[in-house]
């Protein structure tokens, strides 16, 4: 989990989006146990109240479920119907940004799609969507996550 305090996006929103992406993208599987509020707060160096709020809101959305005394887990897919559309929503938004950028550079949607396929075929090297975070105030140095279950899929 990695948040940037000065990005203008509230921290709780950043955390929520990162967690949501992790769940929707399958990095976190159904039944995976999330860190405790305190553990995640300590790891990401954010306020535990913020983490608690994120867990609460994601639980309200059906992505998480809390078992008292046991922990917080990625919820069952009885809401599974929502998950693909979650993914759709996020991808659609990303695609829209990409196409808008391409349009500014004079490419039609078709041309942009072709460009994308070409680049992937050429060796799978695609520019990262976010700039690599330098070590500056507001962002702690990234830590390598050996297991990847709580890492940022980006």
């Amino acid at each position: 989990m990695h948040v940037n305090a000065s990005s203008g996006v509230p921290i709780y929103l950043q955390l929520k989006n990162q967690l949501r992406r992790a769940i929707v993208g399958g990095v976190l599987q159904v039944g995976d146990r999330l860190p405790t509020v305190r553990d995640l707060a300590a790891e990401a160096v954010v306020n535990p109240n913020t983490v608690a709020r994120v867990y609460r809101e994601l639980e309200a959305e059906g992505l998480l479920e809390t078992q008292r005394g046991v922990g917080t887990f990625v919820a069952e897919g009885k809401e599974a119907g929502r998950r693909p559309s979650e993914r759709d929503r996020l991808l659609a938004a990303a695609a829209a940004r990409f196409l808008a950028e391409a349009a500014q550079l004079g490419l039609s949607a078709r041309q942009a799609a072709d460009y994308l396929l070409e680049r992937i075929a050429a060796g799978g090297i695609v520019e990262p969507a976010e700039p690599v975070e330098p070590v500056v105030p507001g962002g702690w140095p990234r830590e390598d996550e050996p297991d990847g279950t709580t890492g940022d899929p980006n």
Partner: protein
Amino acid sequence: MSLMEQLAIRTENLSKHFDGVAAVDGLDLEVRRGEVYGFIGPNGAGKTTTIRMLLGLARPTRGKIEVLGSDPLTGGPEVRAKIGYVGEDQAMYSYMTVRGIMGFIAPMYPTWDQRLAGEIADVFHLPLTKRVGELSKGMRSQLALVLAMAPRPPLLVMDEPTGGLDPIARRDFLSTVMRSAVGPDQTVFMSSHILSEVERVVDRVGIIVRGRLVTVRTIDELQTVQKRIRVVFQGEPPAGLLQQQGIVGVEREGHGYLITVEDHLEEVMASLSSAPVFALDLLDMSLEEVLIHYAGGSRRG
């Protein structure tokens, strides 16, 4: 629970004068139980003076203070037994070893948790047999945190606690605080110059300038509602546009204006975008810029 019991810290018209100069001037502070409160302001604004009064180290010239329901001056050691304090560059007994100073302080707190003390000392790799005088400034701050957190106090007061720590150590410091010092019955009151840190860990921010509290907002409000708008009008700005509700500052910048907004962001954006403009940009204000805005405004005004 009454309001009184919900507040970990409450001051009413708190003032402190030195030689006729008011270092703290009519401060009305309210810190709720369980919250992390960031107390920020320019140098000399009165942060340290306020904190010293919270601990009963200094006597107010005027006004009331209540810390965990008691007056720090008359509450005696019982109040301080519930407060953990990390001061700015705290001088400790340099001849004592790390283990020795822990043994010196521990009997003073009925709630001292030796296991927690050891855990935190481990996280910081504090050398137990070294004398305090031989420790670096950063390690002394870390030791001060061990001494402050081991009793699991309901209130943790920190005054510029991470000065002298490198970024990795600062991260560990704050991480430790987040893990073990925040809870429904655990309040954190901290002043810090390192605003990027403050932004990520606090629930609310109180900005003190010249001894007065100029604003208290949640960190969400500051990050979502406190914004700057850069606008270049075609011609003169429409009458009354720049005096709208929510706009707290207007500066000229080249051909355009830099407008600082504290509230009613959507309405301001709406009215600006409906005006004839060449360019309209919404800029985030970092906490630093917010502080400069309040501190600078106060100096001009």
